């Protein structure tokens, strides 16, 4: 299985994604430079965390114009698996691959901490290894993770089970006390209607090894590896 990790200028979790999929989960990983206009023979595409183009304007607002994003759109439209983590999620929102937008965290501070999320939909290719309503401890690290969308879109997300992860308390209660950043409806991760594109703010790649004291994130990453095996290789571009 071959996973593409897109490198935007300012991506800084690209090496972490490469390491976890290649060295820990034993997959082939191809680093995809943001100027490439086609994606060939990839079984999944990761948009990693970081500060693409410095994110001085609005997170992901410039990265969505990178040449590679045209190819990512085609790839997703043809059913390829796309996972956006943190800045990758923000870029997917700006690119219109997922609905909604990010606001600054309610505290107006960058927050780096472990949070708990509840798996609201365990039937996606990114969560199939999780049990329904399973609580995962996964770190976040962002200043703009306060998800927002209009009421109609929110109702649609709820109705279609597109809310994949919600922030919660350690015992799985979706309350304001479990919400680190003010996110609407405690949303930590959403997928598109087809279910092949997921964006999430928590960093599963940071907690997928016991040496780091927590491997809850491995469930998400292992789900993706399983999900790739079911989908056939994609060739998109040009």
């Amino acid at each position, binding site marked *: 299985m071959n996973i593409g990790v897109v490198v935007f200028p300012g991506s*800084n979790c690209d090496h972490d994604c490469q390491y976890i999929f290649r060295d820990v989960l034993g997959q082939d990983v191809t680093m995809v430079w943001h100027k490439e206009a086609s994606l060939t023979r990839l079984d999944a595409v990761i948009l990693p965390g970081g500060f693409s183009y410095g994110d001085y304007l609005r997170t992901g607002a410039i990265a969505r114009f990178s040449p590679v994003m045209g190819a990512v759109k085609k790839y997703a439209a043809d059913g390829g698996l796309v996972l956006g983590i943190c800045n990758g999620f923000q870029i997917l929102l700006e690119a219109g691959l997922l609905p909604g937008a990010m606001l600054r965290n309610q505290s107006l501070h960058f927050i780096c901490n472990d949070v708990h999320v509840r798996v609201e939909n365990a039937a996606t290719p990114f969560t199939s290894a999780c049990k329904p309503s399973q609580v995962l401890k996964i770190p976040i690290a962002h200043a703009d993770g306060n998800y927002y969308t209009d009421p109609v879109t929110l109702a649609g997300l709820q109705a279609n089970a597109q809310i994949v992860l919600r922030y919660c308390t350690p015992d799985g209660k979706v309350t304001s006390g479990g919400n680190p950043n003010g996110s609407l409806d405690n949303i930590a991760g959403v997928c598109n209607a087809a279910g092949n594109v997921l964006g999430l703010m928590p960093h599963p790649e940071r907690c997928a090894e016991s040496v780091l004291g927590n491997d809850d994130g491995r469930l998400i990453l292992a789900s993706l590896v399983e999900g790739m095996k079911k989908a056939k290789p994609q060739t998109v571009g040009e």
Partner: protein
Amino acid sequence: MSVITNDLIAQHNLTGDEYKHIIEILGREPNLTELGMFSVMWSEHCSYKSSRVHLKKLPTTGPRVVQGPGENAGAVDIGDGLCVVFKMESHNHPSFIEPYQGAATGVGGILRDVFTMGARPIALLDSLRFGGLDTAKNRHLMKGVVSGIAGYGNCMGVPTVGGEIVFNDIYSLNPLVNVFCLGIAHKDKIFRGTAAGVGNPVIYFGSKTGRDGIHGATMASDSFDDKSEQKRPTVQVGDPFQEKLLLEACLELMAGDLLVGIQDMGAAGLTSSSCEMASRAGNGIELDLTHVPRREPSMTPYELMLSESQERMLMVAKAGKEDECLAICRKWDLDVAVVGRVTGDGILRVKDHGTVVAEIPAKALADDGPRYERSYTLPPYQDILTNLNCDLIPDVKDANAVLLSLLESSTIASKRWVYHQYDHMVRTNTMVRPGSDAAVVRIKGTNKAVAMTVDCNSRYCMLHPYEGARLAVAEAARNLVCSGAEPIGLTDCLNFGNPERSDIMWQFVLTIEGMKDACEHLRVPIVSGNVSFYNETNGLSIYPTPMLGMVGLIEQADRTTTQWFKAEGDDIILLGTAREDLGGSEYLKVVQAREQGSPPFLNMNAEKALHDCVLAMIRAGMVQSAHDCSDGGLAVALAESAMSGPDRLLGAVVTLALGRLRKDAVLFGESQSRVVLSAKLVHRQAILDSARRVGVPVAVIGSVTGNRLVISLEGEQSAVKVIDVPVAMLYDRWAFSIERTLHQA
């Protein structure tokens, strides 16, 4: 008639004698550009003119040392063909004038120092000093500095894994921002700042040169007064995105066989990078400013040579490799230009549109600056500081209340409000996050981990600079040992007042002596460092603050230890002995409002024995937690072990021998060479035996149990319970104190 007036010389912070020396070197009067170049290179910040004669005394060698002081950063061998490259630097003056940008560019500068050597930065730590949070100005400075560190480090994707913050009003008008960075490099791929090979091209890359930061180094070498805010234009503005591109471009350039030497443009910008690289190689460099990328077309040679615009590098490429170098830089969207070549005449020659605008021997500029053996004398006020009669101080009555007030004092309180704003997990190496004795990162591809700590108790240093320096070295090493690491190297950041004052120079000289003795005893070499003088405002100096960044190696990462209790029923064991060490303690400051007395007694043999003993126990897998006793003494150390774990609070019931000591000395005194362990019962006998075998005092003092911290003192007759508080209450006071202070305001 000369264009260089006495006023101009004074404005450039040069003395009359220094100016005469310039004329001797050149054989003529300098022009304005040359005067500016001399003034920055001969500033205290760049030339170490007051400190160099003393710094030479420090131990800088050892079997692991790959690169000692004199380069952009030091390097120490950790086996497996790898070395750690690290350094610490100050950005005090700019952070006082403009806290966000001052701190941000401090992070940027130290990162460049490390990746210039060919190392990928994997960890940052910060040592900060502010005045008390009861004033709006100090809160503003702290918030700005923390945001600046977060803004730069987070964007770079280098985790800020640890640090320390101390609050004392002596820093109100002169906060300290010291940033430590560590990177990993292949031992045989270390890059140095050298301009070898006559004819090789000199290539500029990174950001464009602007008018910011001109005379930053000179500003950093001057004392402050009420008008210091007017110096804001001398503070540089950071662009971490640009630096991230620069980092990746550098490491890509270094992966090929393209470079001869490379150096970042830090203080004194283009001037320092060019003359230092030339001088190290015994060569010259000819620069043509016409090609230097710039933000404003009308910049003068003076401005171009002195600008401290951030995120810029100078490299000397192998002849014929120019195009490959340019292509890599362009891939990363960086400005890049060939701006000169290496010459054999030893002269830094600067041209602008065909005209020579400066011509100075590179070595004279870089290495032949003034050296001062400034006079130093024991100040008469020192006796008053150390004189403390404890008989006049009432012993503690309500120890519960004292413990709570110590835990919520800003210096001891949890710094979670700060480190949760720093990305401390990116690069997925962080094994021990902020909040333990030392931060620990694993080294991918090996079974090893590296521990890091930054430490300095400047009150001890103020009370006795020699002892304070020894104590700082001992505490840093103890912190590493408590995490299971063997100390392997040290970097320092020596923050002092005005070296032209004999009392300040006395502090400095004694500090160096103390560091030397302690480092030799513990066999820890000093491989890099930085001196920051003139930390005074309106004549008031900071406490002498020799900040230390120490690095330790953990051979087996799975034997890493943290400071918090792990399991109900474990033994709590104290190594070391309490003495009546109340002088200079946090307890005296917080409870008695005194900063007086002699700092705690330190016996280096006992300290070293303790380190060896704790390391052996940790490596043998006998230890569940290990925590050093420092600020606030044993009671605070026990409280921290009970409440600082990431997942849950654990209580403890402890009985301490009172002996002939005061109660406050046993609970809150800061006697050195002590470590609190917790261990499973099965290891009790082995721990007692191994400590006694090497003469380290040891006692089982209690056990991990329940949800309260209970401490009794055992006198000759019976034990008396003096502390009994729910751990949840301790936690609430300690964890949220800083947040509450900032929000109440």
